[in-house]
């Protein structure tokens, strides 16, 4: 027993030494993605976007000549796996920054990234990550979930034609940090603009059937409902609602709403609105050409969606920050953070709103477009800009 255990340990240490030897003079960036967990339906497209963006950057000059090495892992949307991956990336691989994913793990790691001074760009748009006085090393590229919900609520108010009463709204959200992220902001804003929040329904992370929750909502008579889960969950809710013959109008957040939704939910998705901070793939904006060309060259047979575009925009933002930090000869965690905070209306070619970070405000933008599914296609119907209220920072 002793000899076997010794041999195993020696083997493992040799392997570790070998792995470390492989690293060269590249810039190491960590990537924590969900490819197999409960949000993998959107996680995979995003990861592909990031990988492609990195490959394109390396093929087009890198970071002032240096290549990026993306060290990516699949953490299956499990917080312990993310923590372990983080420890490996920072402790062993010494990555300079991390492109992360989920709300639960990002919020869980926020103290750690602050201590280790590792800029963390998460796909999570949680409002809790926007206040640099609390989370100075957290960034993301979109209006926060809270601002997005506010924008949708404004759309509801504008869409509601009956002047005799306020519109009644319900929230559907997952039983995790991601689901709960914008809810408090939504509650307060509903009161502020005269919307009656009549019901809140919680769904588990993965579910087959939302009928009992929908029936509850029907009892409360909601006219509109906002769904804060991912595409698979939104589809289940929409289909169950249709089966129950509900007249409620549904809306979704940007991880539930994309080109994939009409494909999965089919006719149940008709008329559903959604927040889309990143444009659909193929939209006619200046920055799309790069993506389309890359797609043509490398995987012309795949379909891509707004999540893929989102991954690309993230790479465009942080490679720009790396370039600025490198020019300032400050290619460290703090240097990259400082570089990000010099972004003023940084243009990403129309793929999303221009990005601004300051040392007191990590909200990149507050303008949110609202799209709707019409005839199976995504069509822009409105756009709302939230004021940058200081009391909303960190909410």
């Amino acid at each position, binding site marked *: 027993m002793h000899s076997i255990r010794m041999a195993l340990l020696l083997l*493992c*240490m040799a392997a570790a030494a070998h792995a*470390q030897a492989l690293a060269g003079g590249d810039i190491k960036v960590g990537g924590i993605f969900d490819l197999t967990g409960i949000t993998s339906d959107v996680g995979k497209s995003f990861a592909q976007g990031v990988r492609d963006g990195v490959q394109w950057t390396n093929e087009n000059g890198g970071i002032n000549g240096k290549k990026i090495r993306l060290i990516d892992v699949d953490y299956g949307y499990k917080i312990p796996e993310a923590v372990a991956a983080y420890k490996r990336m920072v402790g062993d691989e010494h990555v300079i920054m991390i492109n992360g994913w989920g709300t639960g793990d990002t919020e869980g790691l926020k103290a750690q990234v602050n201590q280790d001074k590792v800029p963390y760009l998460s796909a999570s748009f949680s409002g809790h990550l926007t206040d640099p006085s609390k989370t100075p090393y957290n960034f993301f590229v979109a209006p926060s979930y809270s601002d997005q919900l506010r924008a949708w609520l404004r759309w509801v108010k504008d869409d509601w034609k009956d002047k005799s009463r306020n519109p009644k709204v319900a929230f559907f959200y997952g039983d995790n940090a991601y689901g709960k992220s914008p809810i408090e902001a939504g509650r307060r804003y509903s009161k502020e603009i005269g919307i009656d929040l009549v019901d809140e329904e919680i769904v588990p992370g993965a579910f087959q059937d939302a009928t009992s929750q929908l029936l509850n909502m029907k009892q409360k008579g909601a006219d509109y409902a906002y769904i804060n889960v991912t595409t698979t969950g939104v589809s289940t809710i929409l289909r169950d609602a249709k089966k129950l013959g509900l007249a409620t109008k549904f809306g979704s957040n940007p991880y539930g709403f994309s080109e994939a939704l009409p494909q999965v939910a089919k006719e149940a998705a008709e008329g559903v609105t959604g927040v889309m901070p990143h444009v659909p793939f193929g939209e006619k904006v200046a920055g799309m050409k790069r993506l389309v060309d890359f797609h043509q060259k490398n995987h012309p047979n795949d379909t891509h969606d707004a999540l893929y575009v989102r991954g690309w925009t993230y790479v465009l933002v942080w490679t720009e920050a790396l370039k600025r930090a490198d020019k300032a000869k400050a290619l460290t965690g703090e240097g990259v953070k400082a570089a990000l905070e010099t972004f003023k209306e940084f243009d990403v070619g129309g793929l999303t709103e221009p990005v601004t970070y300051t040392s007191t405000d990590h909200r990149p933008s507050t303008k949110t477009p609202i799209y709707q599914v019409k005839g199976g296609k995504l069509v822009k119907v409105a756009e709302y800009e939230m004021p940058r209220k200081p009391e909303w920072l960190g909410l």
Partner: protein
Amino acid sequence: MRSGEFHTSYRVDMAIFETARARWILTAFLVVLFVLPIFGSSYWLDVLNRAAIAVIAAMGLNILTGFTGQISLGNAAFMAIGAYTTAWLANRGLPFVIVIPVAGITAALAGMVFGVPSLRLKGLYLAMATLAAHFIVEFAVTHWDSVTGGVAGTSVPFPSLFGFTLASDRALAFLILPACILHLWFAKNLFRTRVGKAFVAIRDHDISAEVMGVEVFRFKLLSFGVSSFYVGVAGSLLAYQARIISPENFPLSLAIDQLGMIIVGGLGSVLGSILGAVFLTVLTELLRLATGALSGTFPALIQLFAPLKLGVFGLTIVLFLIFEPDGLAAGWRRVRNYFRLYPFAY
């Protein structure tokens, strides 16, 4: 060259180390084990710590399932109880010498509560009751926001003792490894005492044991208690090691994995718990390294790590059950006896 074991007194028969050489080998191994954390990289220290925690948990489960024959799927729940107790107490500034035993005792009490069905249920039915216990505890943890932080989880400060903090994986190893050795030592000795033999009697034939005067229910409860204490301590150390705990740290698959560890290692054997836990923990890491290294050439492999881990675990369990039902410990003993008795066959 030895030609077999010939014991001439009860004392020698009950001894843990059959020869002086075994004692020396173990001492040397322990020395190396304690020197290792000084040199290890932070990744492998993490693995070492997690393996040691798994060993403690597997040992606990083995006491209950391997030695006492009570099938339990509630391990993850007891680990959660130990971990959340630790988080709650540590966040109030208590030193780890108090926190860890208290966490263990809390888990032990919970274990005894969930052991009550064992009075009337056996086999599959007991497994079902413990499975239900898992879901009930999971529900409680997820919804008792004020104490557990709900789904977002709670963070755990470093273990401290009168101002002295263990602030890194390296330092934690010097807490976890001795704890592990201590628990294994206690377990080994437990089965030389009356209590341990009562456990084994219950496993082998509980009706006969009752007839012989072993108070079956009392010892079953005690077994649940001791086992859950071990698992609670493992959960407590996990809380310190992971720094952030949430319900996701304790899914049902954790309990199933631990059952797998003791099956692969060998039911009813202290050595089996060690081998099983280390084998499966290291296997996971080797898989991770393999998929990571090969993902340069085959990027799609990263996506396969999760199903691979699941599949290889399951396959290992199935293969061991078909071909080596008594586990690695039995295999090790066969190999050791072969070399010890060479060139004789027995």
